[in-house]
C-alpha cells in the first residue's frame, strides 16, 4: 500500500495500520531486549561455571604434576578430564613460553599458541578469565597454574579450556521461537480486540452516520439516528438528528411557501439573509393581467363560486407564466402581476419574448376555458394583458416582521396602465414600445397607437402581437 493509497483508504485501515505497526514495533523491541538479557545472563552463568571448573583443574595440576617433567601424564590427565565433561571441546596446557605442552588435541602439541592474552595473564597472574566466540558460542577459559594469584608469583603455565555452548545456543533459539509465537498470538489477539472495540465505538457509528447523511443529501429528512450515547460520537449523532429536523422544518416551510410564491423566489427568500431588506436595480419585463368586469361578475355569483373561478383562472395564468420562465409576483384582487427576468434573467430579449409567449399561451388557454364555461351556461371571462420592459427595483420589501420579494417602479406601474388600454382598442394583449424594441426582430408585432399614459410626458407607442 502506497502512502497515497493509505490516505485514500477508509478510516478502519487508517486506524488499524498504524496501530498494528506500533504493536509490531513495540513487540519486536520487547522480544529483542528479553532475548538479549536472557542470552547475557546465560553466558555469564556458563562463564562462571567454566572458570570455576578451570580453577579446580588448574589447582589439581599444580598439586599433582610437575609441569616440566610430567608432560605425558598431563596429556593422559587432560584426556581423562575431557571424557568426564562432554561439553569440553579442547584442553591445552601452555607453558610460560607459550608452547602447548599437553593438549587433548594432539595435533596442537608443541606448537606455539597465538593467544595474545597469554603474556598479560602470565605477567599479572590474574584469576581465570573467560570469553565466548560467535557464532557457535564457544566459551574459552584461561587460568594461570600457580599456588595463588597475584603479580608477585610467576605462574608455571596456563590452562586453556574450550567449552561447547551449542546446547545453550539451541536452548536460546527455542526460547526465541516460542517467545515470538507467543508475542504474535498476543499481537493478533490484541489487534482483534482493539478492532472490535474500535468498530463498536467509532467505526460502526461513523458508517451509520455516513449512510444517514447520504439519505439526507438525497432529500430524505424523515430519517433519524436516535443516538443514545453521551460521548463525543453520540453528540455528533444527536447534532445530525437536530440538523435533519431543522432541514425538514425548512423544507416544509419552503414547500408551503412555494404555493404562494414562485420556486425561484422561495429559494431566494430562503437562501439569502432573511433580515436584509432592500432591493437591486434590474431590467425585466413585467406582465400585468386583469379580469374585466370582475365586480359585475362577482355580484352575480356566490362567494364560493367567485373564489373557485379566480383560482381556476390564476392556475391557468400561473402555469403559463412558469412554463415560460416567469414568476408570479403577486395576486392583486382580480389581477396578476408576473415578472420575467427576476430573480435571474435568461437574457434581456429572451425575458421579453418569454413574456409575450406566456401572454399568447394564456390567451389560448383562456379561450378553451371560456368554451367550457359557455357549455355550462356560465358567463365567459374577459381579460386584458399589459406588458412593459424596463428598469425596476427587485428585492425584499416590507417590514422585518412581514416582508415579501417583489418588484416596484415605474415599469411595473406602466404595465398596469398599458393593460387598461386594451379596453379602448378591443385588444387582449398590448405591449409597450420598450418591450417591442427588444423583440421586434424575433416576433412579429402590429403597431396599435401612440398614447399619452398617466405619469408620462412622452407618448407611449403600443403594439400587439400580430
Amino acid at each position, binding site marked *: 500500500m502506497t502512502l497515497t493509497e493509505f490516505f485514500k483508504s477508509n478510516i478502519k485501515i487508517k486506524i488499524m495500520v498504524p496501530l498494528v505497526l506500533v504493536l509490531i514495533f513495540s513487540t519486536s523491541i520487547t522480544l529483542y531486549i528479553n532475548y538479549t538479557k536472557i542470552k547475557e545472563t546465560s553466558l555469564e552463568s556458563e562463564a562462571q561455571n567454566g572458570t570455576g571448573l578451570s580453577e579446580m583443574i588448574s589447582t589439581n595440576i599444580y598439586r599433582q604434576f610437575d609441569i616440566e617433567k610430567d608432560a605425558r601424564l598431563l596429556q593422559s590427565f587432560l584426556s581423562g578430564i575431557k571424557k568426564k565433561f562432554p561439553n569440553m571441546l579442547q584442553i591445552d596446557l601452555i607453558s610460560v613460553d607459550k608452547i602447548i605442552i599437553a593438549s587433548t588435541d594432539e595435533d596442537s602439541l608443541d606448537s606455539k599458541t597465538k593467544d595474545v592474552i597469554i603474556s598479560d595473564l602470565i605477567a599479572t597472574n590474574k584469576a581465570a578469565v573467560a570469553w565466548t566466540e560467535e557464532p557457535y558460542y564457544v566459551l574459552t577459559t584461561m587460568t594461570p597454574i600457580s599456588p595463588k594469584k597475584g603479580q608477585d608469583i610467576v605462574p608455571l603455565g596456563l590452562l586453556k579450556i574450550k567449552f561447547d555452548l551449542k546446547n545453550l545456543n539451541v536452548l536460546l533459539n527455542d526460547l526465541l521461537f516460542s517467545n515470538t509465537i507467543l508475542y504474535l498470538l498476543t499481537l493478533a489477539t490484541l489487534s482483534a480486540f482493539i478492532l472490535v472495540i474500535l468498530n463498536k465505538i467509532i467505526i460502526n457509528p461513523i458508517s451509520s452516520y455516513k449512510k444517514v447523511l447520504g439519505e439526507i443529501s438525497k432529500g430524505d429528512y424523515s430519517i433519524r439516528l436516535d443516538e443514545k450515547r453521551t460521548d463525543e460520537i453520540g453528540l455528533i449523532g444527536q447534532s445530525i438528528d437536530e440538523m435533519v429536523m431543522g432541514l425538514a422544518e425548512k423544507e416544509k416551510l419552503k414547500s408551503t411557501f412555494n404555493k404562494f410564491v414562485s420556486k425561484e423566489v422561495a429559494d431566494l427568500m430562503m437562501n439569502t439573509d432573511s433580515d436584509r431588506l432592500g432591493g*437591486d*436595480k*434590474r*431590467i425585466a419585463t413585467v406582465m400585468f393581467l386583469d379580469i374585466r368586469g370582475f365586480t359585475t361578475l362577482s355580484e352575480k355569483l356566490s362567494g364560493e363560486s367567485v373564489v373557485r373561478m379566480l383560482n381556476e383562472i390564476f392556475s391557468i395564468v400561473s402555469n403559463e407564466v412558469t412554463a415560460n420562465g416567469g414568476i408570479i409576483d403577486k395576486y392583486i384582487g382580480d389581477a396578476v402581476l408576473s415578472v420575467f*427576468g427576476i430573480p*435571474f*434573467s*435568461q*437574457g*434581456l*430579449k*429572451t425575458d421579453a419574448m418569454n413574456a409575450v409567449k406566456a401572454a399568447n399561451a394564456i390567451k389560448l388557454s383562456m379561450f378553451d376555458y371560456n368554451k367550457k364555461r359557455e357549455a355550462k351556461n356560465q358567463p365567459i371571462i374577459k381579460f386584458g394583458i399589459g406588458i412593459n*420592459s*424596463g*428598469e425596476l427595483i427587485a428585492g425584499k420589501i416590507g417590514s422585518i416582521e412581514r416582508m415579501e420579494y417583489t418588484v416596484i417602479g415605474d415599469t411595473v406601474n406602466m404595465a398596469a396602465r398599458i393593460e387598461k388600454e386594451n379596453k379602448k382598442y378591443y385588444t387582449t394583449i398590448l405591449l409597450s414600445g*420598450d418591450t417591442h*424594441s*427588444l423583440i421586434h426582430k424575433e416576433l412579429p408585432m402590429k403597431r396599435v397607437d401612440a398614447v399619452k399614459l398617466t405619469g408620462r410626458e412622452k407618448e407611449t407607442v403600443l403594439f400587439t402581437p400580430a
Partner: protein
Amino acid sequence: MIKVLLLDNDEMIHSYFEKIIDKTEIDFHQERKSEYLEKKYLEESATFDLAFMNLFLDDGFYIVDFLEKKNEIFSSSKLILLSPMADFELFQNLLQLGAYEILQKPFALNSVLHLISEYKKSIQKGLS
C-alpha cells in the same frame, strides 16, 4: 462543434462557465484581455459562433467601441453581452448596435446553456 468565446476579467464568471460547458461538444475559448480580439482574431480572421463578453474590461475595453467595428471582426458571431449594471437605455442601444442578447449579472447559469442550446437549434433549422 460550435465555437464559443468568453471575454471577461471576472474569474468567478470563468469558473462558472468552466463548470457548465461541455468541452467535448463546444470549442470553448476563454480570454481576459481585449488585445486578444484586436490581434489574434484580426490577424487570423478567426471567428466565433457565440461570444460572451463583459461590457467593460480592466484594460479600457468598452463594448460600444467594439460593437461599432463588430462587423469587421465578428461579422458572423452572435454577441451576448454580460452586464454588471442595469441601464435599459444603454441595453436598447447595444441591441441596436448588433448585440444578440444581454445577460445581467448575476444570471442563472441555465441562461447560458439555454442560449447555446437555442443557437444550436437555429443552426439545425438552418441546415434542414
